[in-house]
């Protein structure tokens, strides 16, 4: 029974990881671009929620909405002003620019908020739980987050495969050189993709803020979790990413159950195992 609890907690954690991964996967899918500062953007969203709730005194739900809007706007502008200028065949410039951003963000947060660990209180929501029996209890907050994660991924799937915008994004992903000939503007499409990814990052970051303690340095490890979920699930498959997040989450909670020091290591090893056995991921759709 103890192990069922461990696995259930892992699945719930995996929802959050899938959300981390969805934004990363979206940007890579459309622009072939990996954002090294992805985890730091998640942490920025967490701090924004902290400011909205603790400093401005907004209710958390309103705060989350504000962070989503703010992050999307910053994502759109950042892509148009900065990132579009370094996108081309060469992968080094975007890697370097986002590496630079990562260092800038971490140190700016350190300057603004100190290295102290923070948390956004979410009232009795945080401690309420559904008790099934002595050993299995599911927290309301983690469950709500998991459902929200599934919801966000469902919305992304819908946008991608059922709307005109999604068609444009997929077409740009397939051939960014042809799309401008059809009258689309790549800079704008890329910026829309980043805005969408930033909205997902905002949801992920605000959830992180309510679920655990955070400080300015935790971004890079969130990037790695996101990356691992994408690779485990298989590139180009958004539900695969959810599965990847869940596998990672379960591996981590099982590791933690064995020894607290093994949590992160177990997740990394699960990732490497998938990489060795199935380099294209467990549920890969795309070829090459």
């Amino acid at each position, binding site marked *: 029974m103890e192990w069922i609890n461990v696995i259930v907690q892992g699945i719930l954690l995996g929802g959050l990881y899938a959300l981390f991964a969805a934004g990363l996967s979206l940007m890579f899918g459309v622009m072939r671009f*990996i954002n090294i500062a992805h985890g730091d953007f998640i942490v920025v969203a967490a701090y924004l929620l902290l400011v909205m709730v603790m400093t401005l005194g907004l209710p958390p739900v309103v705060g989350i909405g504000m962070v989503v809007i703010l992050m999307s706007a910053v994502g759109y502008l950042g892509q148009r002003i900065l990132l579009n200028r*370094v996108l081309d065949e060469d992968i080094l410039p975007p*890697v*370097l620019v986002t590496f630079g951003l990562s260092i800038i963000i971490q*140190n700016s947060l350190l300057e603004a908020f100190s290295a102290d660990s923070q948390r956004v209180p979410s009232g009795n929501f945080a401690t309420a739980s559904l008790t099934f029996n002595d050993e299995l209890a599911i927290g309301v907050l983690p469950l709500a987050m998991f459902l929200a994660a599934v919801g966000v991924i469902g919305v992304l799937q819908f946008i991608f495969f059922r709307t005109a915008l999604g068609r444009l994004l997929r077409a740009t992903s397939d051939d960014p050189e042809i799309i401008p000939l059809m009258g689309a503007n790549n800079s704008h499409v890329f910026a829309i993709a980043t805005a969408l990814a930033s909205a997902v990052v905002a949801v992920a970051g605000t959830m992180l803020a309510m679920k655990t303690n955070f400080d300015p340095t935790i971004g890079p490890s969130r990037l790695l979790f996101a*990356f691992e979920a994408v690779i485990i699930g298989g590139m180009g498959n958004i539900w695969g990413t959810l599965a990847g997040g869940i596998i990672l989450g379960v591996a981590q909670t099982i590791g933690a159950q064995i020894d607290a020091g093994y949590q992160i*290591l177990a997740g990394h090893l699960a990732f490497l195992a998938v990489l060795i056995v199935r380099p294209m991921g467990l549920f890969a759709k795309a070829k090459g």
Partner: protein
Amino acid sequence: MKSLSQTAMDRQSKVQRLALIGVAIIGFVALASAPLWAGRADLRLLMEALSFLALAQMWNLLAGYTGLISVGQQAYVGLGGYFFFALAMFTAVPVLLAIPLAALAAGLVAIPTAWIAFRLQGAYFAIGTWVIAEVFRLIAAQFPALGGGSGISLPVALVRSIASSRSGIELVMYYMAFFIALTSILSVWVLLRSRWGLALTAIRDSEPAAASLGVNIRRVKFMVYVGTAVGTALTGAFIFLQKLRITPEAAFSVTEWSAFVIFIVVIGGLGTIEGPIIGVILFFLLRDLAADLGTWYLIGLGALAIAVMLIDRRGIWGAFKARGFPNLFVTQRTLN
């Protein structure tokens, strides 16, 4: 027949090259004789700069010539450091021999690591190497004999075994740093002038073209990955001998051993031997000037790296070269 202006350009270029060689000789002599003129603190700073120079040359060889953008080279700095501590503390191997042995051990680890990491390409490879470095960091923290998560200091007796006096130890350490940096430059230069270098520059310029001319790209990349791992670990072993203390966080630090090294190479000029040298000088000058600024210095460094990508991604030396400035280390073959 060459035109008059062509001849004038040749002459200007020849003068510039002579000036460059002059500067290089002065730099070499100054560094070789540093223990005679530099104080203890300056010497330590120079050792650190020389270590970073070696790391930068290794990363430049990897990324600049084979296009393998790794953000996980801290794996080998850390492995070099930990293998060195383990060999020095738990075996009878003399301290100075433990350093190259640690580098070779890290090279052995790099072989299966490359096999796994090469399953990922491009940007995925970059993040994958970082995950692997994290795995090594977490494993290193699991060895109580090596201090676990909180790290361990090198026993004083071991340090004393290098030389009898404190100044003697510092002298030996300085020349080790000097030797490591010099070897890193010369080995990259010799490599690039060899048949392998021809393959490497071909891969740098165009992978499909290189492959069609019979370069075994995967094998070349594998050899360079393992080779730079050995060089990086050698430097790592030395760095932690100098620091006298190792912790998993310091040994496998992504900021220190990847971000800074990458910034040094890219700001100086990727894919050139001169670039990392210029980058290291600039990095340490800036650090010296901005020592009191703390986090603002790091923010400025990040901004500088972004600026280089926006203004001229070839970096400082690349921009000079594009304006007809001659090379110090000639690696091109020219047809006359």
